[in-house]
């Protein structure tokens, strides 16, 4: 669905600096803890059913013996023109007007998995099983995020609960939201500062500035999905 704007200025975006990424996967862990992403177990992960809202693609650059690893963290690209949205028969995949991100309404989802097929980034995850959370483990759960039952799709929300909390704090203190005040879990956890989050509608925000960088590119830009995640990657082997 195309972007709808009704006088709301927010347009959240993310910049991923691949030249800074060390592939430590801290973002994956932080995301799982923040969003109650189910741990599906070793066997399922090996089979290809591990659930990650953000995952790190490890690739190799160069030819042997001059090889170096390259990392590309991939999460939902929060497309402005998202392929997942129009194919959902029940409006479970929708565009939020306020934050300009794609959200998944879990209790509206009937599990056709069409959105997952149609997502060129493979960012959508399907709950093949009910989450298995034994007794003491339930205390790690984040009360701000729903637990998804089996049969529904889920995906990265840019930690929409943190965006809402940030907005509420700002409005309680009667001031506009400051740049950098809202950080999704992955951004907060990134030790090398490869991930930067902010409001793209504010041209002076750090994320807007970085998105202008000459190293910038969008994942599969040719598909016309208008992603809100910008990747930075230089030409050199150890960063440009």
């Amino acid at each position, binding site marked *: 669905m195309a972007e709808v704007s009704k006088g709301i200025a927010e347009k959240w975006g993310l910049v991923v600096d691949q030249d800074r990424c060390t592939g430590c996967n801290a973002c994956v862990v932080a995301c799982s803890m923040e969003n109650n992403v189910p741990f599906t177990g070793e066997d*399922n992960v090996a*089979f*290809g*059913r591990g659930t990650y809202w953000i995952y790190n*693609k490890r*690739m190799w650059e160069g030819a042997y013996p001059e090889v170096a690893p390259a990392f590309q963290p991939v999460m939902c690209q929060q497309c402005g023109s998202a*392929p997942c949205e*129009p*194919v*959902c*028969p*029940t*409006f479970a995949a929708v565009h939020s007007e306020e934050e300009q991100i794609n959200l998944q309404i879990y209790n*509206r*989802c*009937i*599990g*056709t*998995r*069409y959105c*997952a*097929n*149609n997502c*060129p*980034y*493979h960012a959508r*995850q*399907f*709950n*093949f*099983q*009910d989450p298995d959370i034994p007794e003491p483990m339930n205390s790690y759960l984040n009360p701000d995020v729903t637990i998804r039952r*089996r*049969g*529904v*799709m889920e995906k990265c929300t840019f930690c929409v609960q943190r965006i809402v909390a940030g907005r509420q704090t700002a409005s309680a203190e009667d001031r506009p939201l400051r740049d950098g005040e809202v950080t999704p879990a992955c951004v907060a956890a990134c030790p090398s500062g490869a991930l930067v989050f902010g409001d793209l509608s504010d041209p002076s925000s750090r994320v807007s500035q970085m998105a202008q960088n000459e190293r910038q590119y969008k994942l*599969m830009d040719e*598909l016309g*999905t208008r992603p809100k995640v910008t990747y930075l990657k230089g030409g050199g082997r150890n960063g440009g």
Partner: protein
Amino acid sequence: MAAETKLFGKLKTTEQEHKDPKEQLMFDPRPREELNRMVMEMMTTTTRKFWLWAIGLGAGVVVLLFGAWGYMISTGMWVTGLRRPIYWGVFIVTFVFWIGISHAGTFVSAILRVFKSEFRRPFTRAAELMTTFGLAAGALYPLIHLGRVWVFYFMVPYPNARWLWPNFRSPLVWDLLAITTYLLSSTIYLYLPLVPDLAMARDRTTGIRHSAYKILALGWRGTEAEWFRLKKAIQIFAFAIIPVMFSVHTIVSWDFAVSQVAGWHSTIFGPYFIIGAILSGVSAVVTILYVLRSTLKHMDYFLRPEHFDALGKLILVFSMAWAYFFFNDYLLGWYGGEAAVRQILTAHATGPAAWVWYTMLICNIVIPWLTLWNRKIRRTPWLMFIITLLINVGMYLERYTIIPLTLGHQRTPFDWGIYTPRPIEISIVLGTFCLFTFLYLVMSRLIPLVPVWEVQEGQVAHTLRKVGKAEVPSVTELD
């Protein structure tokens, strides 16, 4: 009613063609009462073998289909072989397969009726029944493949307190609407020509069968006015159902064509799917006719080598049309120049699952092209049975290539995957085959499978006329 007379064939009768016109059903008439008796016997004769099959298939439906499906509902989709990035597997493959099968029933019946092809007469009903039950089996899959089937009604536009509609931009909602439309109209189209035959059965049965036929025959008496209206209704439906039929499989193809998936996003998919559906459907008609002919009493009188011959020609033509569209799909993919599409098409032919692709081509092209040219083969029912069965294997593999194999080979190599169906999925697929066969088997003893009145009408219209010294088969057009 203008009575026009058409001459068949050449005046000079070649030895082979018209050596014995009695070989053709239309020139081998029997009295109406005799036909009625044969059809009634066909319907009421049940052997031990029949009951064994019925019980076996019934058990298959209960265990393989509903048992496995129930197990899947109670435990979750993890029992399937689906995994990232392949989220649609054999359920959708079989769904498309059944919808395709359901096509040709109507195709054979409605199109041949509209074009007044005389050979259609004895098997229109068998074909229509295949449509209805094929749809019944296929329509289960959109439910089976859901992650949360218990809330399937979210797809239905029903009134609710939150004023929520389904998303009419989603092809899945189009599917739902198209399939229900087709199921409804094809059932009516099956029922209309059935009414006079039900009345015939009503007059020749007693007890519970009599009461049931009495209700179903809607008080049919066979007056001129009734016939006039019935024929008008059939005519209207035959014309109206053709666009419905085309739209249904086009919409099924849109499930794929409107998506962004490389290898699915193709404008040729609409006609390509329709041709494939007709190819697999006409083949399935032949398969079923062979089974009917060899199991039902007196069926060898109604179904003759000429019918297999005529349908064999149709299959050959559609196999060629399918090959053309298949080639086109590749040609456009190559010409379009999108790297991802090229990779997928190459992977189909050279990847780890290339055997699927080659088996498909052998079954869909090589086998029909090599065999169906031959009149002798076309007129040998058991050979036609094997050939058409193989064509349907090929068509199943075509859908398999299009769905899981294409999904597993998308734009980013990091996300490539391989899908293997697991026992539960295979069980459910076999279960719907049992369901289809079971419904057909039961129905064959409940309704007259041969439209007696249509056969008789045709036999009355066909005569051997003397032109000079030669006897020429001819047909009188009745309307």
